[in-house]
């Protein structure tokens, strides 16, 4: 069998380099080189006079090649020089106050906390980045909490129902992403459907202010990315050997024990894959905060667009992209490893 396969491969593509060539060239030209360019431009200076609006890194003068690397774009992401670019984060250490149990660490260590500064000046970039990571992480968690029971329920439906339900999960993600986000505007508006229904039932008397808040962004992200969480979870759950669960039941394990000792460990691959599929794109999300979010909680994807399109500061936008890429490298590699392991165990 093995011998045959290898012969098949050899026969199949003799002189194969031409075949590899096309997608390889395409990927390198349109995917790899662009990232080198981003990296290059992130070290350039903004220039108002030239078109495109950034300076060359190299210049030739008096028989010398000068290379000017401007790391200022990166430093600007962290450094606070302009007051208007900075916000103040104040930490009041209230979380150390356990008055209810007669313990107030904050006040007893007051001298210590007064000595260290409790005010941080952070740039708009750090803040935008923090907002993005927070929203992505929390939404991923919520997706996991909603998606896991759903995936489990689908995996334990009757054989005929399973494929119908799966189709119904995927169907929304085949319709336009934009339209699914748009649908929430009509629901969340002050005179939108949710407020109308709640007021009609008399639960609230004044419309809740949900549009243009972080709450709306959370809902949008969870709603838009939930199918990407459910699919890998379903695959993982339906692969679990049921005899293990039966054995555990026979030996008297409680449902909770079965969940934590068998089901969750065996489906960890699906949980990681699903979480990464939600978290990674959510960090750079642009459409959802733009349509549902408010003007104050800018996310890093929006900040990149603002710098690129409104401020014409391409080097800064490139620096943001590189920083984002470095941050996302860990989850991306984690995801790829997971996929590879899946492939081997299949």
């Amino acid at each position: 069998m093995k011998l045959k396969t290898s012969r098949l491969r050899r026969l199949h593509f003799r002189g194969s380099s031409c075949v590899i060539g096309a997608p390889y060239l395409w990927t390198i030209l349109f995917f790899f080189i662009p990232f080198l360019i981003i990296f290059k431009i992130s070290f350039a200076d903004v220039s108002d006079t030239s078109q495109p609006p950034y300076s060359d890194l190299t210049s030739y003068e008096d028989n010398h090649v000068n290379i000017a690397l401007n790391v200022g774009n990166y430093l600007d992401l962290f450094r606070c020089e302009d007051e208007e670019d900075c916000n103040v984060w104040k930490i009041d250490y209230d979380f150390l106050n356990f008055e209810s149990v007669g313990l107030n660490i904050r006040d007893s260590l007051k001298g210590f906390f007064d000595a260290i500064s409790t005010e941080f000046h952070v740039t708009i970039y750090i803040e935008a980045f923090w907002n993005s990571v927070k929203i992505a992480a929390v939404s991923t968690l919520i997706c996991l909490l909603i998606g896991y029971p759903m995936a489990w329920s689908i995996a334990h439906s009757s054989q005929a129902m399973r494929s119908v339900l799966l189709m119904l999960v995927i169907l929304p993600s085949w319709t336009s992403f934009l339209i699914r986000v748009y649908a929430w505007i009509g629901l969340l508006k002050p005179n939108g459907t949710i407020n109308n229904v709640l007021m009609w039932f008399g639960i609230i008397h004044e419309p809740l202010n949900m549009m243009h808040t972080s709450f709306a962004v959370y809902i949008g992200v969870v709603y838009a990315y939930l199918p990407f969480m459910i699919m890998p979870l379903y695959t993982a759950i339906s692969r679990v050997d049921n005899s293990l669960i039966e054995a555990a039941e026979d030996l008297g394990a409680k449902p909770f024990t079965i969940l934590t000792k068998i089901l969750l460990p065996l489906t960890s691959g699906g949980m990681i894959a699903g979480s990464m599929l939600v978290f990674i794109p959510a960090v750079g999300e642009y459409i959802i905060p733009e349509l549902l979010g408010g003007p104050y909680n800018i996310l890093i994807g929006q900040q990149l667009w603002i710098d690129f399109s409104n401020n014409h500061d391409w080097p800064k936008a490139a620096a943001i992209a590189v920083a984002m890429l470095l941050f996302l490298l860990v989850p991306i590699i984690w995801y790829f490893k997971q996929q590879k392991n899946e492939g081997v165990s299949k």
Partner: protein
Amino acid sequence: MSGPAPEVKSVWRLIVLALGFFFLYMPIIVLIVYSFNDSQLVTVWSKFSLRWYKELFVGVQQQSEAIRSGVLLSLTIGFFSASFAVVLGTISAFVLTRFDSFRTKTLFSFLTTAPMVLPDVIIGLALMLLFVALENMTGGLYDWLNGMKVEEGTLWSGIHSALTYCASKIAGWPEKGAFTIWLAMVTLTSAYVSVVVRTRLQEMDNSIEEAAMDLGATPLKTFFVITIPSLFPAILSGWLLAFTISMDDVVITQFVSGPGAKTLPIVVFSSVRRGVSPTINALASIIVLVVSVCTFIVWYTMHRKDKKRQREYGMMSVRQKAEREKSDTPKA
């Protein structure tokens, strides 16, 4: 007994499913319902009417005209990028599954799948910077040739003027517009096609191809007569996926498109930013309808094929089943 998860009869399971699907579908249903609302205020119900559909198809508002031309442009770009992405993606899937490992295989596999997970803003910015760099290069080439001092009447001056003519034709290429959107969409969607086709290739039975070649078919003939037809469902779903993705993309298109090329998502996005509009609701309802019908047809045909396969599997003898299972288990 080992095997797939059994059906669990529990009220909780049904409640979870009901709530989950309510969450997934309620916004879409509300959207469709209000597209039949007569009132200009989308969320205040007045009476049933089809006026927004009429506005969408024959209306003279600037918005509906922009939508109609956007649909045409998006369909064109979607069709061409999906068709090309299918070719590229299928080849790269082949390279990744059927070729013995070559030196840069891991890098290649990473590069071909990375566009799927990376945030759109990064891909959009990267491609935009590439196109600008290319534009500068072609423009610079023309300027350089044009500014060159050449002696008249020599052979070199003839070559030079020919070169300058060619350079003047490609100067400023690729201009931002439909073409650059197409390039970007092919790059993005061929990753998806590659993954879909790769999955199918991995579970495909090699023995039919081997049999064909044992019986004397050339590799090329085997490829076109056996491999491509058995890959067809995967290629088709890859094409559909690529088409929907490029029909729907806002962020990357916003980066790489010029002022002239307004695709449907760009039109919708810029009008939705200003708030809800009943015409957009009507458009959304039509999109949802079309996508649902297409998805249902694809799903139904695949579902029936699956069932047929299962029936055939059920009729096999025990020994055949054992053999089938043996060949299904991984060789590694």
